[in-house]
């Protein structure tokens, strides 16, 4: 493998790798704004200057490919002056509004300013200001904060496949905006906020909700579709504030769609059923877990109810259900459901050219691997039906005498049920899901279960016991 020297350290590289990547492997961080590994290289921000032996001018590390025997200095006086110059230029027109900016704490401009800029301002000119356009429901624009890195333009053109962000005017007046000031059309708009190196494009959903540094981060997988995009749930206490994509070059690269990004909202919906409930005259009656478990046992013990399981459940949950049925209700039917009109992985496929899949549940592949048959129609007719799902699977029309539901449901979903035992959402449990490629990925618990929700395993154990003994919440 060819080698080059970065700050005196010998590093191996593969042909075509730029100096930002190679330096990172050597443990040398090169500050960048416009460079993003998932986008084309434009070398516009002029932050990643390095000194390359035998080259008279400073070079931009993002656009300089490593070559055999190249000697690179990333910390020389010349480099420091160059970077300080760029920082000064960028801050010349950047408002000093970090205290009220959502990006503060995770802002590249802020970090690089501390790292490479000066604490003093030499300019005394009035700052450049813009009138902002409404970018639609996802993104809040603040053009005054923009440093014109054009990541958003390139994301639209190269990843989202839509030319909606553009630069208009030129020089000092340059404006990064949407074509004719329209709202954003892409289903991937949240990424604009992730890649923006300043607070110019922020999420409306997250606006003024939490300082970035107070958030705890849990690495998990999106349950929005069979893609299984890697992501981080960012939460404080037991409240989720947002989800952001994590890099996984085999699955989602650096991105995620808005549907997945905001999917966490249903777990915190005020109408989510978080206590055992039974249908009573004129509405729902809250009952204790004991009564709930005993009620169900009464209904189904010794019977052969039909089990409908959502393909949004984890491998562990599905396996447990199968074992439970084999033990308690041998011969009972079990069928999985999830996306109307889509019953197998063969019918699954890409919904667009980017990430989204047709299957709107995360574990269709896993359910199939466990040998569970699909529900072929959108309606089911049976005597007694037990529905178990995690909130993402779309309920079929159920035509039965008794319908018992275990899992995550909003009040709006519950009209078909006679009894509900509340279960855990994807953000409240650990587990394994298998994406459309067959890659097994782990869900991680980020927050404690809401209300009196219990895990499916616990519910199944309680149902298996001769006598229901219900402990406190986990």
């Amino acid at each position, binding site marked *: 493998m060819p080698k080059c020297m970065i700050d005196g350290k010998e590093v191996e590289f593969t042909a075509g790798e730029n100096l930002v990547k190679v330096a990172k492997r050597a443990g040398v961080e090169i500050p960048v704004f416009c460079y993003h590994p998932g986008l084309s290289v434009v070398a*516009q*921000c002029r932050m990643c200057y390095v000194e390359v032996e035998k080259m008279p001018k400073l070079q931009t590390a993002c656009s300089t490919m490593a070559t055999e025997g190249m000697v690179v200095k990333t910390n020389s006086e010349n480099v420091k002056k160059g970077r300080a110059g*760029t920082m000064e230029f960028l801050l*010349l027109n950047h408002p000093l509004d970090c205290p009220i900016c959502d990006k503060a704490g995770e802002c590249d401009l802020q970090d690089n300013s501390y790292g490479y800029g000066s604490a003093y301002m030499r300019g005394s000119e009035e700052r450049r200001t813009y009138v902002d356009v409404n970018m639609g429901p996802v993104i809040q624009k603040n053009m005054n904060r923009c440093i014109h890195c054009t990541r958003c333009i390139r994301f639209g053109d190269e990843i989202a496949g839509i030319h909606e962000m553009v630069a208009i005017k*030129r*020089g000092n007046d340059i404006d990064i905006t949407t074509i004719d000031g329209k709202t954003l059309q892409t289903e991937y708009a949240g990424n604009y906020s992730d890649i923006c190196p300043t607070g110019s494009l922020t999420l409306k959903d997250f606006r003024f909700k939490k300082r970035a540094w107070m958030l705890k981060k849990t690495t998990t997988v999106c349950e929005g579709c069979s893609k299984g995009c890697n992501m981080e749930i960012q939460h404080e206490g037991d409240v989720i504030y947002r989800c952001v994509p994590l890099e996984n070059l085999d699955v989602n690269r650096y991105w995620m769609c808005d549907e997945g990004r905001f999917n966490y909202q249903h777990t915190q919906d005020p109408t989510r059923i978080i206590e055992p409930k039974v249908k009573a005259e004129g509405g729902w009656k809250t009952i204790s877990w004991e009564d709930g478990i005993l009620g169900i046992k009464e209904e189904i013990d010794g019977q052969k109810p039909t089990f409908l399981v959502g393909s949004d459940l984890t491998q562990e949950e599905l396996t447990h259900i199968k074992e439970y049925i084999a033990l308690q209700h041998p011969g009972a039917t079990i069928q999985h459901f999830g996306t109307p009109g889509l019953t197998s992985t063969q019918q699954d496929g890409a919904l667009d050219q980017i990430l989204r899949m047709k299957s709107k549940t995360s574990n269709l592949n896993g359910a199939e691997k466990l040998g569970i048959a699909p529900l072929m129609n959108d309606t089911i007719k049976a005597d007694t039906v037990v529905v178990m799902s995690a909130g993402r699977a779309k309920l079929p029309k159920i035509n039965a005498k008794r319908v018992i539901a275990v899992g995550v449901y909003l009040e709006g979903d519950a009209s078909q049920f006679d009894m509900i035992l509340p279960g855990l959402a994807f953000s409240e449990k650990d587990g394994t899901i298998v994406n459309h490629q067959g890659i097994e990925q782990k869900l991680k618990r980020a927050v404690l279960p809401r209300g009196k929700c219990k895990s499916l395993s616990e519910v199944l154990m309680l149902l298996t016991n001769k006598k229901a003994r219900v402990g406190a919440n986990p």
Partner: protein
Amino acid sequence: MSTPVASDTLFVQHFWKDANRNLSYYLESMNGYQAAKRVLTEMTPDQVIDEVKKANIRGRGGAGFPMGMKWSFIPKNSEKPKYLVCNADESEPGTCKDRQIMRYIPHVLIEGLVIGSYAIGCKHAYIYIRGEYANEAKLLNAAIEEAYEKGYLGKNIFGTAYSLDVTVHRGAGAYICGEETGLLNSLEGKRGEPRVKPPFPAISGAFSCPTAVNNVESLANVPHIIRMGGDAFAKLGKIDKSGGTRLLSLSGHVKKPGVYEAPAGSLTLRQIIYDLGGGILNDKKLKAVIPGGSSAPILTADEIDVVYDVEPLMKVGTMMGSAAIMVIHEDTDLVKLLLRITKFYAHESCGQCTPCREGCHWMESILHKIIHGEAKPTDLDLLVDVAQNIGGKTLCALGDAAAGPVISFVKKFRPEFEAYIKGQKRYA
């Protein structure tokens, strides 16, 4: 030093007569299209490139890159189409030589395009002309039509297998579209913003295909090179590494401004100003000279005994650029002039890279403060430091173009700036 005799010049004797732009004049008085015929019927592309290499011709657009070398970078075995693009944007302030060629002898450019396109294997050549040259674009199109009619363009030129189309593309008026990659973006219908290099246009230029971008004057010299032979053309130049003649755009405070022609390296700047230009307007004292378009660092009156060519000028810290000489006499306020120049670059900055976008405007603001007596004494050093943070650090050469004048003006004429700052002088 005598004024150059007519035999030493290739172009100027044909200027200033409207009738010269007709094909008949070009055929009769300039051996029109004979060079192209010889190239297409007798020479291989490599022979053409060799001849141009021998001619030692530097690009006439500003960077002065050897033209033969540029053509030889075009890959021979690439399956992609190749393009020859003529840069007729002529946007450097002070430059007006290409306009003369296009206005009076457009066919010499077209013949140059035919030869150049044949040399690099191009089937479709473009002339990117600046938006302000509306009339010249019209004249060029008329000449191209004439050439098509007579079979000098189009299918099977001179009965050979070689075919070439030429399209004139008008810009919308932007300095940055004279930068070759900015030009290519504009030609493709994109924003006129320079691209990251590498890849250079020779590998990935217009429409991501191998492309040679040549200035009007450079291409117009090619028929002469073929006609007189590369060696003879090289000998026209009176200095190493520069063959042929140079068209000089002389402007400012001289008695006879205009476009002149002289063998490369044959004259000093003083000779150009006093012998060709007839001396300073109203017989005033010379104060300074901007020797290569407005982006070239300024020279004082004492520095003009320098041979006017690429390397001697580089040695005295400035550049030849597009050979546009701006003469400045003693009554000129250089602070005002610098503000005007800086304002131009701030206005023409495309805005994609940080130092140029922010810095050029900042320099303009500081100069504005200086000239209105609002500056602090430290602002002059700040101005120079800002310029140094731009120079050599930008994506394209516009940053250098903006920084060079600022640094040189302040270095050489500092007291004039200080007079404003101290309040000894007021903006009028």
